[in-house]
Every structure is written in C-alpha cells, then in structure tokens.
C-alpha cells in the first residue's frame, strides 16, 4: 500500500486527539469505517449481502461511470468528470471518449436517462459475448447460454478485460470502451472509488418479515433464536434466570417472570409477521448472551490483581516483551513458507497461512504499541517526566507456556506442525499470554481510566481471534506434508556474516529506535516517529523486503539479540 492510498487524518493537537478518544464520542457518532476495516470484518455473513450489498460493487464496473442496475435496465447515475479530465490530460482517453462522457454528465438529470443497452466483453466462464441487455432472460441454460439478467451480466465480466458498452438515450446512441474496473486494491481492501457507506446504501433495516423467518445462522449474530431472559430487579434466585428463552416470544411482559423456556420446538408462541412489523422495537438487545431491557453496563473483569503499581508496571513491560518475542516467532514461521512453485489447493492453503501469520504478527505489533500507550499513561499519572519514561521494547527472554506459571524459550523455527501447535497453545484463551493480560486488566479496572482497560480488553479479544486463526492454519497446512509447504525441511539461520541477514538486523534495529522515540513521546508528539516506523516495515526497502531476501536465499529469518540496554532481553517477573 502506498502512502497515497491511505486517506488518513493525523491528529495534530490535543483537541483533535480528544475528539476521537472519549467514550461518549464513540457512542454518539461514527464517521464511516476506519481504514483497517475489510469485508470480512463484518459480523454477519457477507453473501448474499445482509450487511453489505455486493451488488453495489457492480455500480462502478465501468471506468468513470456509476450505474444503477434496476431490473433489466442499466442506467447511468453519475460521471466522474474530474477523473475523465485527469485521464484525458494524461493521454489515456481520446477526445471522442471525453465528449461522450461529457454528454452523459450533462444529461444526468434528463428524462429519459442514458441506458447501457449493449455490452461486449469477456463474461467469465461464458467467454466473449456481445450481449443485448434487454434480451436477457431466465432460464439461462445450455451451450450458448447468456447471463440471466443485467446484474449477472455485469457481474460476470472479467476484471481488467476490455468492455465495449453501447449507450442510448431517445434516438441517440454512443459507445465507450474501457477495462472492467478493479473493486479491490492490491491489499485486498475496497478500491478507493467506493465511498464510506456505499456498500450498505441499498440495505433496509429492519427487514422485518425476513427477521421472522431467518434462523440465527442466516442473519448476523445480532439475531439470536434464544437468549437468557432479562434480569428483573431484584433478581430472584431461581435457575430459570439462567435458562434460555425464545428471543422473539410473543409474550413481552415480565409479570410472569421467568418467561417460558425455549424448547427444541421453539417453546412459547413467537411473534407473527405482522406483530414483528409493528413491535420489532420491543425485541431486547442481547449482550453476553443475555437480553437487556435497560442500559447495559459492562461488568467488572474478575481476575487476580497485582498488589502494587510496581508489579503492574513490571508485568506490562514483560507483556510488551512477550509481544515482541511472538512477533519474532510468527515472522520466522511466516517466512519459512514457500511463495513460489505452488498451485491448486496447496497454493491456496500456503498463501493463506502465510498471509494470516503475517497478519497476526502485525496485530501483535499493535499490541506492543497499545501496551506502551498504557505504560505512558500510567507514567504520566505518576508524574514521571517524559525524559525519564522508558518505552518497553525489550524482548522477553522466555514466554508463558501452556501450564500456568510455566515458561518456555523463544524459538526461531519454521512453520512446522509442532510450531503451529505451540502457537495455538500460546494464544489459547484464559491461559498463557491471555492469563497474563487478564491479571493486568483486573488491576487496571481500578484505575478509573476506561481507555486503559479498553485497550487491554481489545488485546485480549484479538488474542482469541489469533487462537482461532492458528487453528485454521493448522487445518490448512495439515492437508499437506511439511516438505510441500516449507522452503526446506532443514531450514537454518544464515551464517553470522551473511550480508542479507546483516541488512535485516540493521533495519530491525532502526525500527526499534524509531519506535523507542515515538513511544517515549506518545500521541500526538510521537506520531511522526510511529508512522515512520510503520512505513519502514513495508516494501522492498523495509523490514518486509529484508526478511523476504533472507528467505529467498534459503535461510530462516531470525532476529539477533540487540546489545543495548533498551532492547536486550527481559526476564519474566
């Protein structure tokens, strides 16, 4: 991803920072999704598109045009005239094409509108066709079949291939040629031509009738079939408060508490279609599996607190060290996987495993930053001057093992089945690393600083995601033998004098220095250094390129001990 692709406002003063940080702001207004959001971030299933309507992608299939596909009509909805001008200036569009675009733009509000009536192009598995939109119909079967409808036709067009469209308004016809647009960028994120909200604009909520009919696995997780009943005040001491009830039960009063329990056949009567239409708002919110009819307040996290501030800080510093250590382990494993000579299922599984390992490593980098933010917040609360604050960038000498209170060495090794199994143990909820953070969280809950606890909570939540991810990786790689997916079975670290290895260590050291400077100042003052560190990781000139070069030379990617008091290994408390 280049700098230009990131549309990101960097807060420059305290007031700018404050606007994004307070709890109230999060609850009252959200301006689009953050840049890190991807399609798969949605809580629901994304096909056929209950949380995002994928048909909106096709609205931008043709360069500089947005179209509305309505039944069998494809109507021009808008023209990116600035884009047309820029392309013309760059010599990428003919004067004739520019004239057509300009005419479309001028007639946007005209009635009747400009319609795309004919499309010639490569329609995926159907091959090259010249399709008259009005002639498309179901059924679509047989050898010379056509797409069944206008949207499917556009959907089938192969990305990047040339498309000729014929447009008509009254008796005028015009043609344009262009390549079928790319909907995603190189990084798998939505192309930037899509505006925030564009993929959801065609959804309506609530789809009340659907609500009644759809089972819990069809809808997003916000539609359970059963849930624990809301707790009345005072809470009676009966088992029924912990027995699930049908969420859509028709009986909404709490007078006969507890409601009748759910049964395999549904239990008590559920709301009918029309009832849902009129009283959907009486359905309760569900959090942590229980219905809430009033404001929800998260419960306090229960865990074994650290008795002193000093112990908390020591453990936070160690936690940062553990993050660094697992980044080392995950990156070493990721770069031990093949990137060439792969095909079919092997190719898909190994590519996915490698991408996910790197994603998890990147997520641990965010944790490293988060722990340092918490440490800085604590230091400021304790009136430690900026000059005296030392960021936590010392790698852990040993990391928590699967049994509470046990530790193991940090191991630089390829992504062998044993390594992946160890990663699963490392990220398993409630033990190992999660166990360390749960004590930190329990201690921070007393700090009256919600931001710090939320930071730790999000680290723990991501840990759970990592655990699942490693289970997936285990499943994917488990379908093949290690000699198929590892660069070599006897992969070893490069000799000490290897120049590629030296470059990697040099860049890693420079990265640590930048992070040290950035974490020391915090945000916003340290933002410049932190952004620079982030940039320094990417591309051929970055850590990424150096690691890839070591791997390409047939060696294991390892990170040497840094002999500097700021970065040298730290022992577990």
């Amino acid at each position, binding site marked *: 991803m280049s*700098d*230009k692709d*990131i*549309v*990101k*406002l*960097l*807060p*420059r*003063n*305290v*007031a*700018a920072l*404050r*606007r994004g*940080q*307070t*709890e*109230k*702001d999060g609850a*009252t*207004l959200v*301006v689009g999704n953050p840049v890190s959001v991807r399609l798969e971030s949605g809580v629901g299933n994304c096909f056929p598109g209950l949380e995002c309507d994928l048909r909106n992608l096709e609205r931008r299939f043709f360069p500089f045009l*947005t179209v509305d596909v309505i039944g069998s009509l494809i109507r021009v909805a*808008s023209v*990116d005239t*600035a*884009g047309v001008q*820029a392309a013309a200036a760059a010599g990428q569009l003919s004067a004739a094409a520019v004239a057509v675009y300009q005419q479309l733009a001028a007639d946007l509000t005209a009635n009747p509108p400009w319609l795309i009536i004919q499309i010639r192009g490569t329609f995926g598995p159907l091959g090259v066709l010249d399709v008259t939109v009005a002639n498309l119909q179901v059924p679509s079967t047989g050898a010379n079949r056509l797409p069944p409808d206008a949207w499917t036709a556009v959907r089938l067009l192969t990305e990047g291939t040339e498309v000729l469209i014929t447009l008509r308004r009254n008796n005028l016809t015009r043609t344009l040629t262009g390549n079928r647009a790319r909907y995603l960028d190189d990084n798998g994120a939505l192309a*930037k*031509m899509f*505006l925030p909200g564009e993929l959801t604009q065609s959804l309506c909520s609530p789809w009340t009738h659907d609500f009644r009919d759809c089972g819990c696995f069809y809808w997003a997780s916000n539609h359970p079939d059963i849930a624990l009943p809301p707790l009345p005040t005072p809470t009676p001491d009966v088992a029924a408060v912990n027995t699930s009830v049908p969420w859509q039960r028709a009986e909404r009063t709490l007078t006969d508490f507890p409601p009748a329990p759910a049964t395999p056949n549904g239990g008590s009567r559920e709301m009918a279609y029309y009832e849902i239409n009129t009283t959907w708002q009486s359905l309760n919110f569900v959090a942590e599996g229980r219905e809430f009819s009033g404001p929800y307040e998260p419960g306090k996290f229960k865990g074994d607190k650290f008795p002193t501030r000093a112990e908390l800080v020591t453990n936070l510093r160690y936690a940062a060290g553990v993050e660094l250590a697992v980044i080392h382990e995950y990156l070493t494993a990721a770069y031990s996987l093949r990137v060439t000579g792969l095909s079919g299922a092997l190719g898909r599984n190994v590519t996915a495993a490698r991408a996910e390992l790197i994603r998890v490593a990147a997520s641990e980098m965010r944790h490293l930053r988060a722990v340092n933010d918490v440490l800085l917040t604590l230091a*400021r609360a304790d*009136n430690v*001057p*900026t000059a005296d604050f030392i960021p936590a960038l010392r790698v852990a000498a040993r990391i928590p093992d699967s049994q509470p209170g046990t530790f193991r060495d940090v191991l630089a090794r390829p992504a062998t089945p044993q390594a992946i199994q160890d990663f699963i143990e490392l990220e398993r909820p409630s033990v190992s690393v999660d166990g360390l953070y749960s004590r930190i969280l329990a201690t921070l809950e007393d700090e009256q600083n919600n931001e710090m606890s939320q930071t730790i909570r999000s680290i723990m939540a991501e840990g759970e995601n990592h655990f699942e991810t490693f289970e997936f990786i285990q499943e994917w790689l488990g379908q093949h033998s290690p000699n198929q997916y590892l660069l070599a079975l006897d992969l070893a670290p490069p000799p000490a004098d290897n120049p590629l290895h030296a470059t990697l260590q040099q860049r890693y050291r420079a990265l640590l220095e930048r992070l040290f400077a950035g974490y020391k*100042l*915090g945000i*916003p*003052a*340290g933002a*410049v250094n932190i952004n620079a560190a982030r940039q320094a990781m990417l591309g051929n000139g970055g850590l990424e390129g150096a690691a890839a070069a070591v791997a390409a030379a047939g060696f294991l990617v390892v990170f040497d001990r840094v002999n500097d008091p700021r970065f040298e290994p730290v022992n577990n408390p």
Partner: protein
Amino acid sequence: MNAPDSAVMMKAVEIIPADEAAPLYKRFSSPRGEHLLVVPHTRIFDLPDGLTAGEGHDRPTSEMLDALAAALALPATGEVPLDYVVQPPPQSISLNVSSSCNLSCSYCYAARGSFEGAQPDAMTWEVARVAIDRLLGEADPAAAVTVGFLGGEPFVNRRLVHRAVEYAAAEGERRGLAVGFSVTTNGTLLREEDVELLRRHRFAVTVSVDGGPRLQNLQRPLHVNQGGSYALLHEATRSLLAAPGRAKVAARATVTRFDLNLRERFDAILSMGFPEVGFAPLRSAGGAAGALEDEDWPAYLGAIIRAAEPEMERACEGGTVRLTNLAVALKQLYRGASSPYPCGAGGGYFSVAADGRWYACHRAVGSEPYRLGDSSTGIEPARRREFLVARHVHSQSACRQCWARYLCSGGCHQEATHRTESACGFIRGWLEFCLAAYCELAERNPNYFNPEAIAHERDVHE
C-alpha cells in the same frame, strides 16, 4: 488569544446558535504539508498529500471535508459547547489599587488611573479585603485562583499591594486554594521590598516597556517633567530580572503607527534582561494620535511575522520562544483553545474598582454596561447574563461567519468598535502564520510541546 475551554461541564443560561453558513473548517498549509483546522474546538489535523482535486472520489473534496468537519466539530467530553452562555464562578479578579501613575503615556486607556474621574481615589485596604474574601469564597476550589493588581501604577499604592498579597496568600492557604498573582506595572517604582514580594509568590509580572531608550522615553514619559523613563525602568527592574524567584516576568510593548519596526525594539527589550516580550498594537488612543489605521495593518503583520520567524527557528532547534504573542499562540493551538469569548471578562474574570464595584473588565472601570456587581452584594446575575449574551461571538454579526471566530472571538470588547476589515485581516493573517508555525514546530521539535508542562502551567489573565 482567549480563555481556555473549561474542563467542567457547565450549565447554559442561554444558547446562542452558530450561524449555519459559518465555515466549519479552514484548510491551511505549512512547510510540512496540508492541514485541516476544524474551527469549533480548534482541532488540527494533517491532511494526506494529494487531497486537492478530490482524486479518486465522486464527491468534491470540499463536500467530504464539510461532512467530516461537521462530525469532528461536535464537542468531546469535558468541552463546553460553543453556543453556550455559561456563568462560571469568578476565578480571577484584578484590583485597581491605584488611581494615579508616575508616567503619562498619551495612549493610556485609564487616564493614568483616574478613568476620566470615575476613580478619583486610590483603593483602601477594606475594599481590597472584601473583594478578596468574595473571590475566595465563590471561586471553584478545584481551579486556580488569581488576584491581579492594576491601576494607575499599582506600586504607587505599594502598601496595599503588599498587604493584599500577604492576606490573599494566607487566606488561600487556610481555605485550601491555589492562589496566584499578577501585576501589570511600568516597572519604574520597583523597590527591593517589592521585588522580594514578587519573588516570594507565584506572580505573573507584566512590565510595560515600549522599546529601547528612544522609544521608551518618547512614548512613556515621566509625568512630572515629561523626562525619559528608560533609565529609571532599567535600574528598577535589574534586580528582578536577574533573579525572578517564583515570579514569571514578561515585557509588554505598545506599538503605535509611528514606528512599526518590531525586531529592533524586540532586541532592545531582550537586552534589558527580559526573558519574553509581547507586542500590543494600539487600536484606540482616546483622543490622542498613534492608533493603527487601515493602511498600517498589513505592515504590522509583516513586522510581527519578521519578529516571529527567528523565534520559530530557535524553537525548532530546541530553544524557547521569547515572543509572547507566538509562545501563547503555539501553546493554545497545541491544546486546542477555543472559546466564544476573547477573554474572561464577566465570565471568570472581574475587575474591582477603588469604590468596590465589580466591572467585567479593567479597561471599563466607570462604564455602566460593564458594571456587573460589587464586593458587598456580589455579582448581579441578570446584568451579567445580559453582558455575556451580547458579547458572545455568535452575537457579533461581523464575526459569526469568520473561520477565526473561536480563536480571536471578536477581540477585546473595548476595541470592538475599532474593528475593521483590515484589522481583522491582520488577525487572520497572524493566525494563519501561527497555525503553520505550530504544525512545523510539532514536527521538527515535538519536545517543544511538553504535555506535562502545558497541563500544569496556569493561565494568567492579562
């Protein structure tokens, strides 16, 4: 610039809506790139490069920024909405202890302390004590409390100043209040005992000094014989400047249209030993000559920027900023200071006249619309409310649609009638310079903005 946001969410006695057509953001550039100022609450962001032609978007960039700014402009937790008129407790008073002065500067707003007959006599101890008691009794104990001394020349009434400081400090300590002090003085009457007092307490000392010998003697002559005051000033301030103790000393220079060269006098004043110099252009001179006129403002802007540029370089290289105007602007931009009022007048600040009446502002002693109460009966809420409603920046037709409305906030109430397009052009030009300077400094020397220092530094009213 203006009073800081209050961290305490206060109740509005009136809400004056913002102009719907008012800009919510201002784009500006610095040597470091493109930036966005979200006007309400003064939030500053870096914009990504190349966000000029709306590249890659259907919507024009301006439309996206409008939508973005509308969201970012909402108040965050702890910020008082900018359309509120609030009546916070008084935190700061100035005592007009003296009704006379040993200098006779032609441009003096107070007519040497007599306020054209409105304050014929000096303040008595009883009046000062009652005012201090009321302040300490009503102030929010969680916030800083300041007692200031003005005149006339405050040290003409030396005994009262000493007695009031000792009393307020002791009384503040007894009540658990953090009391600070401020004084604006011409510096010529300071004796060692005064210097000791200033050193011992947390005093913000503003010394009025217009320049080197030539300018100082010309603009600030002695009253008795119209002789020069420079030598006297230099001698009397030497000891304080050499060892200020707990006092924070700064020079404040009035600039008339007759001499707009700032750099020279800046250096001259620094050479006397002042650590910091602020400039105040003369906007109204009563009947006298010298106030800046429309054609002077562009030249004045150029002059203050020329004085500021070397200070910026110093700051980027790790030094301090010695130009108060720039130092304050940078600090306030860092915090995101934003207010519908240019100062605390009638809000947290009141000025007590020698007769015990409380005015919204020390420049308005004797002016009926500014009289908001007195020490014995307290502040009159209805008068205060009327005063604040009328002076809210949303009530100023000339300011409602200006992007600088929460930074300048309409400027000094006393000088509002002298507001002209040219004078406002100066304010905006200066703010644009400061915004760019802020962004550049934040990048080149982030350590300049030490969060701890800024959080703990108390604001001192002028």
